[in-house]
């Protein structure tokens, strides 16, 4: 508490880096306060450190594009279906505007990046969700791109890796969004019947329809430390049970204990750990 007060006096930025990264003010401030260890750290230092706190290894959110670069060998990533964009099928009010706004802000056209690439020399299919694009919600383009990527894996006998980061369904696409859960899950079933491995990687946050579909279907499921992972969000559960949630509820470590994760892997070890698992599967 005293530390916090002191830091306030010094006039350091008080917002979390997550929020910070999404605002246009990023470049105006140099310092940030880590939400885990309360240290004051250079934003630049965080950015250059895979968005990890250099003091306590806290995992800040990482943009999808940076994640691709982190996992895939340089210059080997070939993006698939990068021009697919959502249409407003339900004529939902203000959906187009929202899409435009997020496209401008995130410089991405949708909430998932899919493609092929090499991971320490091994050919893989990689899908990375982008929580900066409409909360990483699954519209039909997210479902379609992910499904096509899985189908690509089946066709070319490649392992599939999906990095999840999502708030759930995309409300503006209603039932069409819901059905993407079935579409992606059945594609993974086909992948499975073809004997190909699927590694699911859960990052902060993985909730809603994503968790209740491909996030939980990995042959091997790993998560970054301290990520929020759940079906219903904490706010909704709190409303339902009218009680405070226990400490650590729905965090990676909680899910590991409850049997839903194979392992928790720090971002720094992620690429090597995936590589090791793929090797063990004969790649």
């Amino acid at each position, binding site marked *: 508490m005293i530390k916090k007060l002191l830091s306030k006096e010094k006039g350091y930025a008080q917002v979390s880096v997550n929020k910070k990264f999404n605002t246009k003010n990023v470049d105006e401030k140099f310092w940030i306060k880590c939400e885990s260890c309360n240290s004051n750290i250079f934003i630049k230092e965080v950015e250059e450190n895979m968005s990890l706190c250099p003091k306590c290894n806290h995992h800040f959110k990482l943009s999808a594009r940076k994640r691709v670069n982190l996992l895939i060998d340089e210059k080997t990533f070939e993006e698939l279906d990068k021009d697919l964009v959502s249409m407003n099928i339900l004529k939902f009010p203000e959906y187009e505007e929202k899409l435009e706004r997020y496209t401008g802000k995130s410089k991405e056209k949708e909430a998932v990046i899919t493609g092929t690439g090499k991971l320490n020399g091994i050919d893989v299919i990689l899908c990375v969700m982008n929580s900066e694009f409409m909360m990483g919600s699954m519209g039909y383009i997210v479902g*379609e791109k992910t499904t096509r990527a899985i189908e690509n894996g089946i066709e070319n006998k490649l392992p599939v890796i999906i990095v999840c980061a999502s708030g759930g369904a995309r*409300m503006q696409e209603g*039932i069409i969004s819901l059905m*993407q859960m079935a579409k992606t899950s059945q594609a993974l079933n086909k992948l499975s019947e073809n004997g190909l491995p699927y590694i699911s990687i859960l990052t902060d946050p993985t909730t809603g329809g994503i968790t209740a579909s491909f*996030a*939980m279907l990995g042959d091997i499921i790993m998560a970054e430390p301290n990520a929020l992972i759940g079906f219903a969000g904490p706010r909704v559960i709190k409303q339902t049970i009218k009680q405070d949630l226990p400490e650590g509820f729905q965090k990676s470590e909680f899910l590991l204990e*409850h049997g839903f994760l194979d392992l928790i892997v720090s971002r720094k070890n992620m690429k090597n750990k995936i590589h090791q698992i793929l090797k063990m599967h004969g790649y």
Partner: protein
Amino acid sequence: MNSLDIDKPIIELENKIAEFEKISRENNIDLSNEINMLSNKLVNLKNEIYENLTAWQKVNLSRSGNRPTTEDYIKNICSEFIEFHGDRLYKDDKAIVGGIGIIGDMPVTIIGHQKGRDVKENIQRNFGMPHPEGYRKALRLMKQAEKFNRPIITFIDTPGAFCGLEAEERGQAEAIAKNLFEMSSLKVPVISIVIGEGGSGGALGLGVSNKVAMLEHSIYSVISPEGLSSILWKDASKANEAAEVMKLTSSDLYKLNIIDKIIKEPLGGAQKNIEFTSDKMKEYIIEQLNEYVNKNEEEIVFERYSKFRKIGYNL
């Protein structure tokens, strides 16, 4: 506005007619002209109201306490039924019922969300909101059906999977995901009928099917109208407005090619004449099952896969 509100002008008119009849009888006055006129008016009123229900009125109708439930339809469409309990892992979740029934002369596995028909039963049934063990029981019974080559009928009627602490602890997400995954490769035909509320992933967990039908006044949506309005507009009271933009009625979903069939309800909703509704439903099921008799496993799996594969493909 709840379902009673929808019926209010109708009930008023019905009362008026009853009153006229009473007066006529007791005072021996001929009011047949007036009564006839009112009766005609009643028919028109009913048509007008029920054929032009707003989305929000349908939401309320689909949720109304007297709407028939899975067990009611089972009773009406099956000559025999045995309920099977339990997920063989943790619990028997009473928010989902399942078992084997005979429809026509065909044994089928039937699984459905089960709401209560009074407060006590609703507590027992958790208002039709399953825990993970409900989905796992459903999957167990589906795998059993597949083993014995029985078609599967699922009834969808849930506000959603339960959002509680224990449900999360025991893997609500995993349970639903697993069902989507496993249902997609079942070698027997699966027919789903939304009979009331088709709420989100909790509904879809029984809904990866070869055919998806909806009762006329049922709904199927990614979130509740209340949920949508509070997320988008930070105001749960705008649920009725939300309902209108959501495309959650059977006719909306039929137009969107999400469902295959709308099963007609009697005027005023299924509860007004459950036999009528059940007959229509039974007819549809038997017609569908007869079609699958001549299809092989691969065709059945392929049909189901294609059905969901194309949602958001050719757009």
